[in-house]
């Protein structure tokens, strides 16, 4: 099913989606309106508060401007306008999860039943319940989602998969399309535009979650065998049911991207979408080495994230960095200062095999609702994605 045939303003009602009642939908859409209001009408005032009062006061006292985003943060932490924006941003996040939980809880039995009774599947689901959850996932509930990716509250639970699917649509204010797939669409478009002859036989999506970004590869590379791995069982159960309801063949398995059970040289293409910032300094190095092992000669590794801090002003970096301490994304800051060249070098690809690219969002229908800024609380509003990775020499 091509996204161009879908209503661009609605999340697609696939077979496993937690469809809200009209009242639940009002509660949910209020959150997106609140987030849009904060991003477009409140967030811009942070810069004014900085330039009009915080910065002049700092310069007057110290005789120089803040040296980096950390100094800006310490300064702005005392600004009442910034604090109010932050309090509202944090609350909007909590309201978002709550508004979806209520809807998922009401239809829990139905979702569980549909999710666990997939008839004649095209793809597959392989779980490893004994697999340890890595510390960077278990330390805090990422982006404030209660229970995180791995929390289970009933046998064969997929509730948090259902919560995540709907909440992402609200979080990005619908700007990643009816299937929340703008990241996968954009990355695969990059491949088609820049490497038109690239025909991967096997594709791996690391940290696939509920498969939002995985499914576009089934359409773009129909001949390829498509795999998705994640540490969260509820995500994978849901991802499997979702892919099947959409008629896409994907093989999902519960695995840690740092060390998988696939053989050497098994894949031609390895991708990840907003995985890197949810790992750690050590884990991303392991993931790079594992990707090198898993790729066949001539194979390609591409990670998708928001742009690195080095490409923006210290103040803009400070604003984008809000998630690190306020949205339970402890590696957000660290991941935005990674050096693709260094990582390619230490993982075996070689420094000269690294690349970076800024790719425009594939979902053009949302252009009017994008701010064209990379700022906290405005995910999917930038209109582009930062790609980085490495090619394994043939």
């Amino acid at each position: 099913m091509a996204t161009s045939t879908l209503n661009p303003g609605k999340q697609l009602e696939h077979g496993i989606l937690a469809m809200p009642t009209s009242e639940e939908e009002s509660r949910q859409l209020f959150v997106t309106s609140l987030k849009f209001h904060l991003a477009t009408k409140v967030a811009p005032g942070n810069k004014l508060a900085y330039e009009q009062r915080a910065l002049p006061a700092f310069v007057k006292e110290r005789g120089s401007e803040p040296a980096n985003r950390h100094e800006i943060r310490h300064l702005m932490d005392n600004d009442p306008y910034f604090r109010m924006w932050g309090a509202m941003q944090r609350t909007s996040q909590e309201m978002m999860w709550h508004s979806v939980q209520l809807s998922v809880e009401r239809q829990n039995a139905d979702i569980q039943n549909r999710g666990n009774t997939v008839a004649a599947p095209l793809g597959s689901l392989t779980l490893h319940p004994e697999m340890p959850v890595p510390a960077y996932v278990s330390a805090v509930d990422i982006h404030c989602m209660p229970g995180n990716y791995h929390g289970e509250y009933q046998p064969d639970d997929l509730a948090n998969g259902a919560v995540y699917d709907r909440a992402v649509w609200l979080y990005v204010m619908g700007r990643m399309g009816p299937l929340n797939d703008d990241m996968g669409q954009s990355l695969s478009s990059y491949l088609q535009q820049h490497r038109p002859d690239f025909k991967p036989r096997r594709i791996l999506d690391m940290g696939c979650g509920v498969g939002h970004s995985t499914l576009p590869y089934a359409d773009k590379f129909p001949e390829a065998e498509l795999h998705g791995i994640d540490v969260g069982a509820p995500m994978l159960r849901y991802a499997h049911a979702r892919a099947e309801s959409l008629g896409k063949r994907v093989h999902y398995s519960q695995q840690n991207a740092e060390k998988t059970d696939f053989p050497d040289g098994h894949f031609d293409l390895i991708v990840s979408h907003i995985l890197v910032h949810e790992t750690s300094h050590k884990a991303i190095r392991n993931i790079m080495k594992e990707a090198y092992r898993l790729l066949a000669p001539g194979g390609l590794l591409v990670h998708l994230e928001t742009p690195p801090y080095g490409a923006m002003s210290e103040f803009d970096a400070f604003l984008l960095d809000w998630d690190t301490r306020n949205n339970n994304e402890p590696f957000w800051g660290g991941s935005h200062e990674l050096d693709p060249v260094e990582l390619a070098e230490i993982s075996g690809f070689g420094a000269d095999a690294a690349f970076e690219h800024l790719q425009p969002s594939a979902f053009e229908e949302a252009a009017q609702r994008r701010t064209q800024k990379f700022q906290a609380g405005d995910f999917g509003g930038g209109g582009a994605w930062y790609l980085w990775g490495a090619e394994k020499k043939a």
Partner: protein
Amino acid sequence: MIELPRQAKGDRPIYLGDKTTDNLLSMLLALAGEVVVLRERLDSVERIVSEDDSLKAKVDAYRPSPDVEKERDAWRAQFLDIVLRPLKQDYEDLESRSGAKGYDEAIEIVTAVD
């Protein structure tokens, strides 16, 4: 029926000086959300009541058309402009700071004898 946990693991920062003020803000925003829910439910009722009397089922099943969605989008945006007016005030003060006159100055102006 299950009840998922409401609290995310990880300390919540203090934003507005103390927990109480933060809680007041969270309650205010939750209340604002429920006002929207109520308003939209009423809107559904108003659109349905003229057709038929099986209100409850119809209200629950009501799905706004793209046009209605646009109206509601606009209404929510206006609602937020009204309720969150104090923030806009702060924004405007920051914008016009250079030209702002202190209140004491206004008193001086109106009480000046000459």
